[in-house]
Structures are given as C-alpha cells and as structure tokens.
C-alpha cells in the first residue's frame, strides 16, 4: 500500500490558494440585501402567531381529552353497568326498546339524596321503560 505523499499535492494546494485569493470580492449590494431581508421578514412574520397558537391548541386538546375521559367514566361506571345488566333476561321475548331515556347514575345519586320517594319514582320510571305492562312477558301464562 502506498503512503500518501503530501509534497506531491503541494503544487495543487498552492494553485487552489492562489485561485481563492484571486476570486473577485464584489462590493456590498444593498438591493440584494434588502430583497433577501424582505423575504426573510415575510416568512418570519406569519410564524409568530403560529408559534403562540401551539400552547393554546395543546391546552384545548388536553381539556377536551380530560372532559371526554370524565364523561366516559360517569357513563360507564360499574354501578351503571350493573343497573343495565339487572334487567330481566328473557331469551324468548327480547326486551322492548325503552321509549324514555334511562336515568344516569348522577340522576340516581341526586334522587337518593332527595329521599326514598324520589329514588323509587326514578326506579319505577326506568322499570316501566324497560319492561312496560304491555310487554309480551306479562301476557304469557306462567309455567
């Protein structure tokens, strides 16, 4: 393997240095400078509000996410699920679709705080909605 000989490259190094020294160095061109700076300013200005929007949008997204999680937790808590699953299971007669939307867990809690009468009224309403008196199960003879 041949070892590099720096002396062999020296004339070329000298030639390149001479050429670099000969390169023209034009005078400062104010028009070129102002054109470039104007383009930079045009690009820089709209970016300022965009940068300010980033934390705002992030905060909004976090709030929306937290609200969604809270809503989902309230509407899918185990107590609520038990209330839904506690409806009578009758494979021969599918349940009739409720006409009135069922009360939420929050509504039950509020009713319980108001007293037994309010709670039973709410339970009655949901029971009637889930299984109305006209349901086929009540018309079939008991085994």
């Amino acid at each position, binding site marked *: 393997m041949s070892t*590099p000989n720096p002396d*062999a*490259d020296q*004339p*070329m*190094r000298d*030639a*390149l*240095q001479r*050429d*670099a020294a*000969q*390169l*023209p*160095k*034009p*005078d*400062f*061109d104010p028009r*070129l*400078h102002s*054109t*470039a*700076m104007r*383009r*930079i*300013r045009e*690009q*820089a200005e709209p970016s300022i509000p965009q940068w300010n929007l980033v934390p705002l949008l992030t905060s909004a997204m976090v709030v929306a996410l937290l609200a969604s999680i809270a809503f989902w937790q309230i509407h899918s808590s185990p107590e609520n699920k038990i209330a839904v699953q506690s409806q009578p299971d009758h494979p021969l007669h599918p349940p009739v679709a409720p006409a009135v939307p069922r009360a939420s867990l929050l509504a039950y809690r509020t009713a319980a705080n108001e007293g037994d009468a309010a709670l039973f009224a709410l339970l009655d309403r949901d029971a009637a909605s889930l299984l109305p008196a006209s349901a086929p199960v009540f018309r079939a003879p008991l085994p």
Partner: protein
Amino acid sequence: MSATPSEQHADLIALARGGDLEAFSRLMEESQPQLMGQALAFCGDHQRAQDLVQETMIAAWKSLPRFDGSCRFFTWLYVILLRQHRRALGWFSRRLPLATLEQQAAANRVEAATTSAAPNPEAVEAELLRAMLTALPARHREVVRLRFYAEASEAEIATALGISPGTVKSRLHHALTNLRRMKEKMNQLRHGAH
C-alpha cells in the same frame, strides 16, 4: 472599554440566534461580498449567483438556532451556500438532461478565456482549475472548497459537515490526488497538441 470586532460579532450572532432580525441583517451585510464572490465562482452568472446568495441568507436565518458556534460563522454560511448550490443544480438536472450543468458552464468559461483576443495565461489556468474542481465528486469538491476557498481548518470542516476529521483528511487527499492527475493528463494533451 469598547468591544473588539470579534466580540461584537459574537454578540451579533447571539442576538440573531435569539430572533433579532436587525442583528442578522448586520451579520449578512458583513458576509455578503465574500458570499457573492464565492457564488459567482460557482455559477459564473451574476443573476444565478444573486439568487444563490438570497437562498443562502434565507436558509441561514431558518437554521440559525442550530448554529452552535463550534466553527466560524462564515464556514457555517459557506456550507449552506454549497448545499443551496447543489440543490439548485439538482433542480435543473431533474428537468434537463444536464446533470453536469456546472461542468458545462466551467468548460464554456475555459473556452472563452482561451479564445479571447488576448488570452491571459493566469486567467486560463484559473478557469481550468475551476473546471477540474467541478469534475470532482460532490463530497470531495465540498471539502476542497471549504479548505481553500473558505479557509476553514480540517477540524472546522469536520464540525461543519458533521463528519470525522479523518474523513475530511481522506477526502481532501483523494481530491488533491485526482486534481493533480487531471492536471497531468491535461498537460499531456496540451503538449501532444503542439
């Protein structure tokens, strides 16, 4: 006590990095003539050289937060100039069958220098050297230009290009060897012609 020019320069860079456009403008005022001289040597055309300097300034402003001061400001600018130039050539070569557009332009300048009414041997030699430079692989040409035209040290080139000092040394060695061989070949052809 007043600040030295290099301290003022460092202050301007710090201000510009913080988003001060006025400081950036002053830095560019200082660098523009040298950048334009280099751009003219690359392009050989005043309009294209001006476009190149403009694009370099814009790219420099965008990249300024990433400038960490590990090399001279001009070396860093010069790397941007080289990359913008390569990008512009890439744009042309995608649209025209002229992948060697720069070589063609250099050859034209050699031709013009040789066939002028009173050819200046030094000018012809300079154009020949620049034409040979365009024939080098881009990675080698980049290192040669940074070393000799931007007067950057090998360590600075390594930092500016994000490569090891050994790679800089090796690329420089290969580039100089290739240039020397090209020159020898050209001399043989010239002597054969006479």
